[in-house]
């Protein structure tokens, strides 16, 4: 059996890079693929962050509806406890479950927020899990042992995320380490693909989702080498050597796409999707230091002051313990979410502003962020957009989300460190997330060599269901991307709307954050989201 739909996930992929690689002949399969299909921008969540974004793709909903709010989030709306992302945070049904209910099987590989793996009809090997726990956190029980026995070359240590190796990506690996670091990602992607191929032989499913996340990791570190707009007129040999190594990774991804087409391209609908796009970041904004200067935040005396210009965005004191909640009105909890929480009395504890002052204070804070957080050299605003939680997180989980979400002028992540300065230039250009991701679709009934206007992540789930000929739950927020399909196909295949989804149950765990969580968080910084 061949899958009806394959979601071929490229974490952080952007046309900025892919078009250049296609033009250079480095990704010939992708070039052919998009000539035979439809492409367009796939708009991400606010903020454009991996856990929120992939979760929107697999639920057809915004983060306020699906419940995954960041790499770290408060346990609930009244808690001061912070949790790492997990499947327990979903409050909405996933695509895997929706197709199961309509008699189809699903396979999910390397999706974030999928541990412990949901017990679907099919198989789930989650992403963002260290190798020791892969066996326990995958589904069905025994799948990892089965792969070890049956799949030549399978190595769970190569498949799983390696926090120590990833750490090299941001601490500035010596030149000679670049090849091995990139090689590690090439090997990981091959491992994931071999798992897909093996599982489809042994235990086929109608819907497959797989995420290749090295795209994101390479782009964070090597953006200067990958963005063709930044290529020096006279590049030095070292530049060319690093770029060639990075291109090797993309050659591998293209080979995997080619193998996917060889295996399933005649029958399957294949949707190449990214969770967000990418762009350059050249500066750091120390947002908590700005809040301090505005009189909204007071640090605890013992909180470490880092040098102005520090490139580190977070430390172990990123949360309440870094500042004095009794004298703090607003704070950024983590770097990756670019979110600001307003400390409201009675919400999480008895510190903060009175609830009746919330609206006025929030207006004042938005005004300050947009007009007073400025480049000290030019006076230009550093923050280009501020979204309220009603705008970014509307839904049952809104009250657990940041009150404000910032978009910086260069789309970078804020730093939550304590500094004297509020702004610094980066010594080197790095990559950061951008809202414009990619969608390229090809398959039965899909138009050829066409492009469409931007669509958004939540549209993917209903579109997948339509392509599979299944009913689309009436309460999904996204829509079927009809413009992907030919008129003939649309005429022959009516949209079939079904009842509401089945709600997942989010489970909140009270209490504080252990040191071990903090350590993992430190290691996750290496992945670029947290830095």
């Amino acid at each position, binding site marked *: 059996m061949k899958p009806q739909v394959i979601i071929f996930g490229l974490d952080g992929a952007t046309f900025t890079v892919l078009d250049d690689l296609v033009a250079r002949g480095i990704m010939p399969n992708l070039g052919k693929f998009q000539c035979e299909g439809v492409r367009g921008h796939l708009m991400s969540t606010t903020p454009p962050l991996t856990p929120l974004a992939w979760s929107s793709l697999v639920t057809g909903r915004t983060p306020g509806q699906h419940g995954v709010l960041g790499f770290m989030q408060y346990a*609930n709306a009244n808690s001061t406890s912070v949790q790492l992302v*997990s499947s327990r945070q979903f409050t909405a049904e996933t695509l895997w479950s929706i197709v199961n209910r309509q008699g189809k099987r699903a396979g999910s590989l390397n999706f974030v927020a999928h541990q412990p793996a949901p017990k679907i009809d099919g198989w789930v090997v989650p992403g963002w899990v*260290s190798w020791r726990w892969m066996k326990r*956190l995958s589904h069905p029980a025994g799948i990892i042992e089965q792969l070890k026995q049956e799949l030549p070359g399978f190595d769970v240590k190569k498949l799983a995320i390696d*926090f120590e190796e990833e750490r090299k990506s941001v601490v500035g690996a010596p030149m000679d380490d670049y090849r091995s670091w990139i090689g590690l990602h090439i090997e990981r992607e091959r491992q994931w693909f071999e798992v897909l191929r093996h599982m489809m032989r042994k235990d086929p499913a109608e819907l497959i989702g797989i995420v290749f996340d090295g795209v994101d990791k390479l782009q964070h570190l090597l953006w200067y080498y990958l963005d063709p707009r930044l290529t020096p007129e006279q590049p030095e040999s070292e530049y060319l050597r690093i770029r060639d190594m990075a291109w090797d990774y993309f050659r591998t991804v293209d080979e995997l796409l080619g193998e996917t087409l060889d295996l399933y391209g005649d029958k399957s609908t294949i949707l190449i999707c990214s969770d967000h796009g990418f762009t350059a970041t050249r500066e750091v904004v120390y947002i908590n230091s700005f809040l301090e200067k505005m009189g909204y935040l007071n640090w605890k005396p013992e909180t470490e002051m880092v040098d102005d210009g520090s490139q580190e965005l977070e430390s172990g004191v990123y949360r309440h313990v870094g500042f004095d909640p009794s004298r703090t009105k607003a704070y950024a909890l983590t770097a990756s979410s670019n979110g600001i929480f307003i400390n409201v009395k009675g919400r999480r504890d008895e510190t903060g502003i009175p609830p009746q002052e919330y609206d006025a204070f929030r207006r004042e804070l938005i005004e300050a962020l947009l007009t007073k957080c400025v480049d000290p050299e030019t006076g230009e605003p550093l923050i280009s957009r501020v979204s309220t939680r009603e705008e970014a997180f509307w839904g049952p989980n809104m009250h657990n989300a940041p009150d404000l979400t910032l978009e910086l002028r260069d789309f970078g992540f804020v730093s939550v460190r304590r500094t004297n300065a509020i702004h610094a230039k980066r010594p080197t250009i790095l990559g950061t997330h951008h809202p414009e991701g990619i969608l390229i679709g090809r398959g039965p009934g899909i138009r050829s060599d066409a492009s469409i206007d931007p669509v958004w992540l939540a549209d993917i789930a209903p579109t997948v269901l339509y392509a599979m000929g299944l009913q689309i739950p009436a309460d999904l927020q996204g829509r079927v991307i009809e413009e992907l399909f030919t008129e003939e196909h649309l005429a022959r295949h009516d949209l079939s709307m079904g009842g509401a989804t089945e709600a997942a149950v*989010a489970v*909140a765990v009270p209490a504080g954050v252990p*040191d071990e969580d903090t350590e993992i968080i430190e*290691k996750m910084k290496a992945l670029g989201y947290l830095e």
Partner: protein
Amino acid sequence: MTRERVRHDLVELLKDAREDWDHSVTVTDNTGIFNELGFESIDAVGLSSALEGHFEQALPFPEFMSKAKEQNLKDITVGQLLDFLMQNLESSAERKVA
């Protein structure tokens, strides 16, 4: 669920996570999971997810780890983990929120 049953499941779960598990090791309630069984601090989060997955319910593992830190514990023993599980496997259903 009896303490012995939970103990059995816990030890099996810990074994699963260690390919190089030394089967000659006798695990007692006083065995430290980090210093004696060789787990690293990074494994704590995976352990938390694995426990919740196995017992199919949420557990206040961060709270448990925070208390251990407050008490300046240098390690967490199998017995302490068992105490934690026995206490919370009975009550965690009440923690679920819609």
